[in-house]
């Protein structure tokens, strides 16, 4: 397939293997060495670049980890590296210099790119840096630089004037509009790539990948009468920032999941299909009683998400099938998500858990509690929930629930914690659910 996109100022048309990571294309084929290789698993942010997508004649820019992004995924889009942003009067760069926010310099281009996206999208600058690791500075100087940038932006919306984006950005919407690209087909469907590309980029080189993130048919969040319908290609960021979703649950908690650049490309369906026993969205959607719509291009079927996870990494999905939609019922619920990991942000949980409850006069009428990291699949705690029905939402009920929950789980000891710890932690998270849910009354 031919991939056509804009890299910084230049239109690129290439026939090379679209499966290679964007990072390698940038560094080895375009010789742009400012984007660095730190870990190749989306955990350091040294390879962060901007990805611009045309929507309603406007280009929306977001950060992505170029190590996890196949070249094919940037077809028809605008990729911006540090070389495409640098300017002697760029206030992000100037403030980073003046505060000493760079030491060895290896992570620095990634930080500049992330702060650029934050400036463009008027995002909290520190939040925008949740995917960037620096081993030298201790971050204080970076925080100060970020704050100075945002203070200096208070009086203007004109990023061109502050040299945060260069002049050539002005023509990008038109230029992207001119790119015609053909949807490709393949035997393996890939979403954002944030799971498949983790340390496995070489294994994927020979596969026939179908790049699905261009398929706008799969990227939507539409409220129906009874449920919210979410296209399978919807990214985590789109999910978290969606107003229909935030009417249903507190989306602030979801910022504990992955990092900004990973959420910007990772898809909800991808997180489900990955079938990690600790998958955050699996756990959340289990509690929300999500249904998934599966197709094999001739016929569709709908199943409940709790029927989807079969055994360790085994899912109820045939080779020729794909998820096309996720449906969350619009029930009146109180909802809470808990996640404990070694590091609070951008880490995989030791145990995570979600709880969705409907009460009348403080009596539990329906409740779903899910837990990750305590079983071979993301687990719905059925017996625990069953016990709690018709009981009061109080400490006594939750205490008893804990003792049932520990019988439903089979945690193993691994790098994320001993089984004794995970057993204790799940009970603590159930207690935390109660505290949080009581707070919502």
């Amino acid at each position: 397939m031919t991939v056509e996109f804009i890299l910084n100022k230049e239109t690129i048309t290439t026939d090379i293997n679209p499966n290679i990571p964007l990072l390698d294309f940038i560094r080895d084929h375009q010789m742009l060495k400012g984007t660095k290789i730190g870990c190749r698993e989306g955990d350091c942010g040294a390879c962060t670049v901007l990805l611009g997508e045309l929507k309603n004649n406007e280009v929306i820019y977001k950060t992505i980890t170029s190590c996890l992004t196949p070249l094919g995924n940037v077809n028809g889009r605008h990729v911006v590296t540090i070389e495409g942003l640098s300017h002697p009067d760029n206030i992000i760069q100037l403030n980073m210099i003046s505060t000493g926010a760079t030491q060895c310099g290896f992570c620095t281009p990634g930080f500049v790119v992330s702060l650029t996206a934050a400036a463009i999208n008027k995002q909290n600058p520190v939040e925008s840096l949740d995917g960037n690791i620096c081993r030298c500075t201790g971050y204080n100087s970076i925080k100060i630089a970020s704050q100075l940038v945002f203070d200096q932006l208070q009086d203007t919306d004109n990023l061109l004037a502050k040299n945060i984006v260069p002049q050539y950005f002005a023509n990008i919407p038109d230029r992207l509009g001119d790119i015609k690209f053909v949807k490709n087909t393949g035997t393996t469907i890939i979403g954002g790539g944030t799971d498949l590309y983790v340390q496995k980029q070489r294994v994927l080189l020979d596969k026939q990948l179908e790049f699905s993130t261009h398929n706008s048919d799969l990227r939507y969040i539409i409220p129906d009468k009874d449920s919210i319908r979410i296209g399978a290609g919807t990214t985590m960021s789109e999910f978290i920032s969606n107003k229909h979703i935030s009417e249903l649950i507190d989306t602030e908690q979801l910022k504990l999941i992955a990092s900004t650049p990973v959420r910007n490309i990772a898809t909800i369906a991808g997180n489900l299909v990955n079938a990690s026993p600790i998958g955050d969205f699996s756990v959340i959607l289990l509690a929300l009683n999500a249904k998934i719509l599966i197709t094999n291009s001739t016929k569709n079927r709908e199943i409940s998400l709790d029927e989807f996870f079969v055994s360790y990494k085994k899912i109820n999905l045939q080779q020729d099938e794909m998820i096309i939609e996720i449906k969350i019922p619009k029930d009146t619920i109180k909802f809470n998500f808990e996640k404990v990991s070694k590091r609070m942000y951008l880490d995989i949980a030791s145990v995570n858990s979600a709880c969705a409850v409907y009460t009348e006069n403080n009596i539990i009428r329906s409740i779903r509690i899910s837990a990750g990291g305590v079983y071979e699949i993301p687990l719905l705690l059925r017996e625990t929930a069953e016990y709690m029905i018709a009981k009061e939402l109080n400490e006594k009920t939750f205490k008893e629930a804990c003792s049932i929950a520990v019988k439903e789980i089979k945690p193993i000891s691994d790098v994320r914690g001993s089984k004794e710890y995970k057993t204790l932690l799940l009970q603590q998270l159930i207690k935390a659910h109660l505290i949080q849910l009581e707070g919502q009354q």
Partner: protein
Amino acid sequence: MKNIDSISHVSGKSVYVDDIPVLDNTLYALIVPATIAHGVLKKIEYTGDHSDFVRMITASDIPGENQIGSIIPDEELLSSQDIHFMGQAIAIIVAKSLNSAYMIRDEVHVEYDEYKAITDPRVAFNSGNIIGESRKFQCGDIVWADCDTIVSDRVDMGGQEHLYLETHGSYVIPTERGYKVISSTQSPSSVQKMIARVLGISMHLVEVDVNRLGGGFGGKEDQATPIACMAALAVNITDRPVKLILDRIDDLKMTGKRHPYSADYKIGMKSNKIIAYDVIFYQNAGASADLSPAVLERTLFHATNSYYIPNFKATAYSCRTNLPPNTAFRGFGGPQGMFVIEAAIDKLAEKSGIPAYVLQEANLMKNGDKFPYGQITDNLMLTDAWSKIKTIKNVYEEEIEQFNHNNKYFSKGMAIMPITFGISFTNTMMNQGSALVNIYQDGSIGLSTGAVEMGQGVNTRILQALISSFGVSADRVKMETTNTTRAINTSPSAASSTHDLNGWATLDACNQLIRRLEKLLIDEYQAGSVEFINNRVIFNDRSLSWDELIQFAFTKRVDLAAHGYYCTPDIYFDKEKEKGHPFAYYTTGVAIQMATVDIIRGTYKLDKIDIIHDSGRVMNSNLDRGQIEGALAQGLGWMLLEDLQYDDNGRLLSNALSTYKIPDINFMPDIKIEFIGANNPLGLMGSKSIGEPPLMYGIAGYFAVRNAMRNHKNIDMAYKTPLTPERILMGLFS
């Protein structure tokens, strides 16, 4: 002055090894790592027919010595037979492309006889696996009967991955003059020496060039050497340029870390004065000596941290296990020594009911006090820093009391951490530096030193010294790469001493040139006093621009290049007696840390830290703050977050950035720093070195969290790091 590299850093133009455009005929090398931790290599072969395959290099291909041990010769470059750790290099694959090299490596067939691995230093000690001799520092006579309170306990400290963002790498090019080696190393001369040894050639045939490092932290002091040696070996065999870059997974798997330690101590006090301390350290050295004996020694130097303890005995063993050889990491054994004494004081406090800070203060080192190894302190700002921290402590205490009163599910605590860190390589011989100052005929200047820039800003500091000497502006000077043809026989950039050693050497060269220029002015103009300032030279009520002076000097045949040299005066150490004066001076300071523990979830938040730091006469506050904040992050990470795990077979479990977590922007507390300090005659421009010492402020993080737990309820929790959410929650419920 801002870090002179920061402009190229923020624009992505700074060049690291992997960014250098390669020559057309470059080959790509990969290391084949052992997949067992202990055993014997029976067979290794590649029988595939990949078209890009060039060579598989094994131990028998080495033309010189298969030996890279720097302190003790106990480490092969490529295993000839014995396997000592998982990840040990057993062969090198050379291929025409990197991708092909990976595919070929996957098909290498290896057979072993596997033996049981040892990963625990105490198990190694009990089975007699000790590297070198045990070391013992001693002073006074311990009489337990004189003590009114005695406690004893065991302490265990985890290791720490360096996680320099730029992984190890080297690019070696064959030239008609030998080998040109581009390496991400803190120690160009070690690379040069070892390549010569491995290839069986003389050092002058090996030119090592270092532009900059994307972080080092000690991880590239000794362990960049084998990477460069392997690339050079591949060049020797193929006669083509070879690039060898470790990917993150290989880097984590193959290289050593900060040493995990286990320790037993017994400590006693009488009316708040510590009068007896007996401690035994078991260092987990990994599979070979590497720098472990030197690290072990520094543990002993810092075993009393900032406290005067009259009766003291410390014994230390470097225990050989089947982990990758552990190595230098910022602090170099000092943090482990300091953590144990702090744990001992914490336990004393718990038993006696006297707050730890009272005991810390009562035993704080004063100027004129003697360390157990004989050095008498002076120019310490410890008590000054302490009194400032005490004022802050009152504010902290009030906040904590109020918060804890009002919160059921969260508990706050705080801890104070003084530091006293000796500056110098404890191996006296290594305290030397050199510089080459070249003044071109147009007045511009090139400066080469033995210092390696790895983000610490050493080039900026040395440049500051040079321009203050010549009175020229910074734009007249280029900091050259670190190159073994311009700065020879250099010590590694380590031990917080790089800018002192190479900065003083630079000033030596500058002084020679100034004397020559002054002589010229006296000879030609009968100059009286001569002053170099603002790009001019002023004498006899007249002045010349610097450039005019240099052009004039050139026409008058004045030598405009000078080699400068420095070796630290008056330092020595007698290893027989374990006494001496090993350090040029001490860097000191005190920190107070506040933390909040989530009682339900077992998680914690580092609220804030206040640091009073003695930096001598601050020569660059921007760089000094950066060093303190960065070192603190690593110290806090080591204490609380960075969980290095091996299984019983010696396999690294935290083997990727998804499982090994270092501090991120949300982890760090709010940081306030105040500098105190006076002119330090042995420090560059009156300053005090700052690279390593502030790391140990991070120890306060451990005790702040522990105290937050203790403020909630009595706990009986082993002193074990890192203090992860798992240990916190289990500690709260034990």
